[in-house]
């Protein structure tokens, strides 16, 4: 097996929040936005990261890129740990890993023509590059993402949502990165445009051998684009495995409930699980044991006692559930 491009081990991010009161009078609480997750992304492959909003998937994306300091655990990119922000190594790593945002209008500077912004990474990382060469690279990159040359003079608000997302992509790609973290890249777009952007991402992956971490709550798109999928619930991974088999035969009750919410995905299965009920629990006050037990139709007494760890099933999939993957099944999830 080849070396993973990106690997996270026991990654965690805790926030300290104050509750009930201002200043020194509130009591502090730990909010575990991300609580010990491990995952790996192979070169040229896509890892889908799914879950309800607030489950920590965006935080995970930022941790993976080193945009936010981890409270515990580590991220290795191409075998090397992430460098400290602001250092030269950090700058070098930035060139190889980029981010695509949910809100392209917010991610772009309203006061600069988009051509300038697409070329900005070159200004930052190759300050000596002649302007003509830079403009040529910008033109080429715009063509690669399907923008017309005259768009370079436009300002972000003069473009459509799909065009803006193409601009963000072009800016991310101009340094020829090997990894893109896409944080809900299409959820702000019109449905008709979503497919175009997804196809563009697939084409680019094929041409450039890009690896993606694709964060989304849209399971259909995740299924279409991902090789592997990790399902997150309240800061933890509850199911992680090869995309096609995970979608065909979800094991964790939470994954099953998520998939049940989109009728077209689960085709057969005699007892289709009911779509998920209620709201996720307060992340600052998670339930004891398994975080999902409060909404789980199959919860047992054990679920309230201890949190299940990830177990590897026969097909190589990892599931964290006392009912589906009991302790005795296997011990070895690393």
């Amino acid at each position, binding site marked *: 097996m080849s070396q993973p491009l990106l690997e996270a081990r026991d990654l965690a991010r805790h926030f300290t929040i104050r509750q009930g009161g201002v200043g020194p009078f509130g009591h502090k609480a730990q909010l575990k936005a991300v609580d010990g997750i491990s995952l790996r992304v192979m070169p040229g492959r896509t890892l889908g990261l799914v879950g309800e909003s607030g489950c920590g998937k965006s935080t995970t994306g930022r941790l993976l*890129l080193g*945009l936010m300091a981890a409270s515990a655990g580590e991220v290795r990119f191409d075998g090397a740990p992430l460098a400290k922000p*602001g250092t030269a190594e*950090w*700058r070098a790593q*930035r*060139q190889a890993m*980029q*981010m695509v*945002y949910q*809100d392209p*209008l*917010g*991610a*772009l*500077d*309203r*006061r*600069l023509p988009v051509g300038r912004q697409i070329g*900005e*990474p070159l200004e*930052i*990382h190759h300050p000596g590059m002649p302007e003509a060469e830079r403009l040529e690279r910008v033109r080429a990159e715009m063509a690669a993402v*399907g*923008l*017309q040359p005259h768009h370079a*003079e*436009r*300002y972000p*608000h*003069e*473009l*459509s*949502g*799909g*065009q803006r997302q193409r601009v*963000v992509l072009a*800016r991310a790609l101009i340094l020829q990165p090997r990894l893109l973290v896409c944080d809900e890249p299409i959820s702000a777009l*019109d449905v*008709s*445009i979503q497919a*175009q952007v997804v196809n563009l991402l697939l084409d680019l992956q094929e041409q450039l051998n890009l690896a993606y971490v694709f964060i989304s709550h849209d399971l259909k798109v995740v299924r279409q684009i991902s090789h592997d999928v990790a399902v997150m619930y309240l800061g933890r991974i509850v199911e992680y495995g090869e995309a096609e088999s995970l979608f065909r035969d979800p094991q964790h009750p939470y994954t099953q409930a998520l998939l049940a919410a989109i009728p077209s995905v689960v085709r057969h299965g005699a007892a289709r699980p009911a779509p998920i009920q209620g709201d996720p629990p307060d992340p600052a006050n998670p339930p004891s044991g398994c975080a999902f037990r409060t909404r789980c139709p199959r919860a047992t007494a054990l679920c309230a006692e201890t949190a299940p760890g990830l177990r590897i099933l026969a097909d190589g999939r990892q599931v964290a559930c006392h009912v589906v993957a009991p302790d005795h099944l296997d011990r070895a999830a690393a």
Partner: protein
Amino acid sequence: MAGSIRACAVAGPSIEGDVVTDITAPLPAENAMPVRGGLKRFFTAFPPGVLLGLFWIALMLVLALGADLLTPYSFTAFDLKARLQPPIGMGGALNHALGTDELGRDVLSRLIMSIRMSLLIAFFGTLIAATLGTALGLAAAHFRGRIESVILVLIDFQASMPFMIIALSVLAFFGNSITLFVVLMGFHSWERYARISRGLALAANEQGYASAVRQLGAGSARIYGRHVLPNIASTLIVSMTLTFPEIILLESGLSFLGLGVQPPLTSLGNMVGYGREYITRAPWIMLAPSAVIVLTTLSISMLGDWLRDRLDPTLR
């Protein structure tokens, strides 16, 4: 601002057929209503009140810049034969168009010098307040943590005390000099800029373009100089149109009390304070500078409101 004008000029058909759905893009005022003739369009874009205000501000600037050439007399020259001479229209003569004071000094000449002094103080005061406040606001947003708390406490303090009182106590402790006075005026309303720039920079750092550019690997100088400052500039400029008249009022208030600009220098408030002694016999001495204060602050406020509507509809 350039962006909004471009918007109507070049928003052509887009490729791939997806419609421009952005309703937040500023609509140019000209397109908001049916256009009937150039003149009407002109007055829609530039209301007469704003034009008058602009004209008045331009006049004040010309007077301030050309003060040395435009004053008919030296502002300290006595004309003892023409003491308390009324202005034209109140029985005066052409040689002293706005009359004279009790030492026979030409009110018009003094007024022009006062305009220059008051505008200079307000200009530098505004500049200092904007620079200081913006720098502190950006520092708070950049460093967070303890530095931010300290700056927030300072903002709280400044906002909770009437600045007139702070200014008076500083003047009491340090005495008065024109340099100190200008710097002191610069501390008026710095907290407004600190608040604005901190808020906008925080927003940009959290989710927006600034964090995107930082993620590309950009350094702080590029982020703040190239991206954040140009983006918040219009909001800051609109705030400056609030601060400028406020400083004129504050300066004239203090000078009126005899605690601001000191003789032989003269400012608008100074003239009013001085003229108040002669309110019965020679009201023109105080009326002329009073009118200038009111018209100038009024003009700048109107200009500011207009600018705010055009540049920054999100502000208040």
